[in-house]
């Protein structure tokens, strides 16, 4: 056990930090922010990803042969920390970088990797995820979207839901049923679908925060070349499980952790500044307990990530343990934002756009976002079942 960094790791950090200082506009995250308009924000994020790539800071942990720099896990951790510390924008192509890439590196053909990976890295092609359907949420394996093999193409019909960023996506990683007779887990395939293919229609889904990150996606006789099948036909379920484990795992969580930490620091600042007569919110022991609990829980989120990285270093693969990571942070973060509004007292309801809103109303928006944490990437109920059955070995 060793929390110190090697000189090479320290150099890596310094190099990145210097690059970020130059690449981001002056005052970024303090006086200069992402645009409020959703589309403009999305385009800004894509531009940022392209800038990262141009600077050689994209896909740093990917194998060099696919355009990465083969960074170590430790460097990857440093990378996540530094980007978050600089309050760098999230990318737009999160699904491409984190999920599609991991899936293709492990399960794709060499020609799929060559075709897709470098364009993910460069930000040339953005991806969305077509897994859930209106009647296949927690019960994902009951998807009905059907892909009929017709010569060298699949013809896909069906409806997907919660396809994040589909409006900006060039490609979709899609789960479709390819065998109606087989048991439900055994008749599913994973396809790579060009979003420009005729027959695809999108309808934005407005979230409770008022934003439209999600979409409904309708597929009507959409033709997908057979070579865009990932893995074997009817073997898509297992591959999708790898994808989902990645979504729940430490790499995703570490980036989030640092953003939560930033919000928490802002909250502590607010608690020190919000005054009632002689005293500040931070002087109240009961609020202090809740703030301390948030500090403890968000810090442990980081430690969980580091332990998970360390297990990977030992060669342990992604698996059901990732559900523990996700279950932990989703509730820790929900508690954090409930506490945040509590700290604001009678100003808790003042939201972004109000001149008296604390910290520009960010906590109210984060509070609303946080309600989805225990739902997406598998609801907490699903995670608990996975942990119970696949980690603890309890009977079905």
């Amino acid at each position: 056990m060793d929390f110190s960094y090697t000189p090479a790791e320290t150099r890596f950090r310094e190099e990145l930090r210097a690059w970020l200082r130059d690449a981001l506009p002056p005052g970024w995250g303090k006086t200069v922010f992402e645009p409020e308009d959703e589309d403009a924000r999305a385009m800004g994020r894509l531009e940022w990803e392209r800038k990262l790539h141009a600077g050689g800071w994209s896909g740093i942990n990917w194998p060099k042969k696919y355009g990465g720099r083969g960074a170590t896990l430790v460097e990857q951790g440093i990378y996540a920390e530094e980007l978050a510390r600089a309050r760098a924008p999230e990318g737009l192509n999160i699904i491409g970088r984190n999920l599609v890439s991991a899936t293709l590196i492990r399960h794709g053909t060499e020609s799929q990797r060559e075709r897709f990976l470098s364009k993910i890295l460069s930000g040339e092609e953005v991806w969305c995820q077509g897994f859930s359907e209106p009647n296949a949420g927690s019960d994902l394996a009951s998807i009905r979207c059907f892909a009929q093999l017709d010569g060298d193409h699949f013809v896909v019909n069906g409806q997907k839901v919660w396809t994040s960023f589909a409006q900006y996506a060039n490609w979709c990683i899609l789960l479709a049923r390819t065998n109606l007779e087989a048991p439900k887990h055994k008749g599913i395939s994973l396809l790579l679908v060009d979003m420009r293919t005729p027959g695809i229609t999108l309808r934005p889904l407005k979230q409770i925060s008022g934003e439209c990150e999600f979409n409904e996606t309708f597929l009507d006789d959409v033709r997908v070349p057979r070579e865009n099948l990932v893995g074997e036909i009817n073997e898509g379920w297992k591959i999708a499980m790898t994808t989902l484990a990645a979504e729940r795992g430490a790499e995703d969580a570490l980036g989030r952790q640092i953003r939560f930490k930033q919000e928490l620091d802002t909250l502590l600042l607010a608690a020190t500044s919000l005054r009632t007569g002689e005293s500040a919110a931070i002087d109240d022991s009961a609020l202090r307990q809740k703030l301390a609990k948030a500090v403890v829980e968000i810090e442990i989120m980081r430690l969980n990530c580091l332990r998970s990285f360390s297990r990977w270093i030992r060669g342990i693969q992604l698996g059901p343990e990732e559900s523990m990571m996700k279950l932990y942070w989703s509730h820790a973060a929900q508690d954090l934002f409930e506490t945040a509004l509590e700290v604001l007292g009678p100003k808790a309801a003042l939201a972004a756009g109000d001149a008296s809103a604390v910290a520009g109303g960010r906590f109210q928006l984060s509070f609303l976002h946080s309600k989805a944490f225990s739902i997406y990437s598998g609801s907490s109920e699903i995670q608990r079942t996975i942990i119970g059955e696949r980690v603890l070995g309890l009977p079905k």
Partner: protein
Amino acid sequence: MNFDFSAEQYEFRDAFRDYLARDYPLAAHVRQATDYPLATPLWAGLSGMGLFGMLVPEAHGGLGLGFIDLALVLEELGRSLATPAAADTLAATDLLVRYGTPAQQACWLPGIASGTVRVALAVAEDGAGHGLDGLVTSARPIAGGYRLDGTKLMVAEAATADLLLVVARLPSQQQLSVFALPRDATGIALRPHTTLDIGARYVEVTLSSVHCDANALIGEVGAADRLYDTAAAIAAIELVGIGQQMLRVAVEYAKQREQFGRPIGSFQAIKHRCADMAVAVDAAASAAYFAAWAIAESPHEAPRAVSIAKSFCGDAARAACNGAIQVHGGIGFTWDLGLHYYLRRCKVLETTWGDANWHRERVLAETLAEMGLQAANSATHLSESLCKLAP
């Protein structure tokens, strides 16, 4: 002793429930968010059913009922996310009935009863925390009346109110008092807030040298406290309504929605969560009804009863809102399903008129005072008696 409502009270509740469900379903909120204000027909409807006359004595054109009669109706107002202007007007009515001079009552109560006078409560201030202690808005005696200065936060629907009740501090005795000001008095400026609750409009009210005559002062000692307690009790009961509605919606969805070939409500994860919500919301109702009784019948018990209710109901309603979204899964996170309207209103009700922490602190202080116990340093003599309390 009977801790139940009468058949008439239940019938009255049912009439409001039917009206609100028919004329003011959730779809109305969706419209309201884009197409504001929608409150006027609602106001007329509620008024037509007699809501605003309930607390008004018959002599002033009302029904002469009490706060207990109102309780179940308030639950329905909460459940249907009715405009907070209704809550404010009812709290103001209670205050006028209890503390108003005959002249003040004659001036305002008939209009309230007939639905032509809406009242907004201007109490909270930036930097004042929860409760009244930190308020600094000043009322200075001038010839023939008072001059008010200060800025009030989160005043609900002030733009369409006729009357503002303003809590301000008189310099002489540092006493907090309540002043009734016409909304269009000179020196009153409004700035709209942007808030979490998109089903209502809240404004910041600035009072710059607002002059009023001596008759604007309502009651004396205790009026401001009464107003705060009544408003908190109303919020607590509305929170129960929200909690009940979220429970109902979650249970209905859990019965219909199928996953893994079964209704999701057949899974213990969902079933047991709904059960916990039901227990919390039902216990919240116990607390809220008792607070309503205390407000009506036992003023000396009211502060403690209200604080018990406001703290518990806020927590229960929050849990119910969060639970309902979780039971719905992804669809619960969509704007159009509309669960967020409840979540948003719930958060406003939780954090106005004292949050759960503030009310719990008051519960404890009241409890210790009743027991003759003091915090701090005067309790040494008790240590000995304690040792004897074996086992």
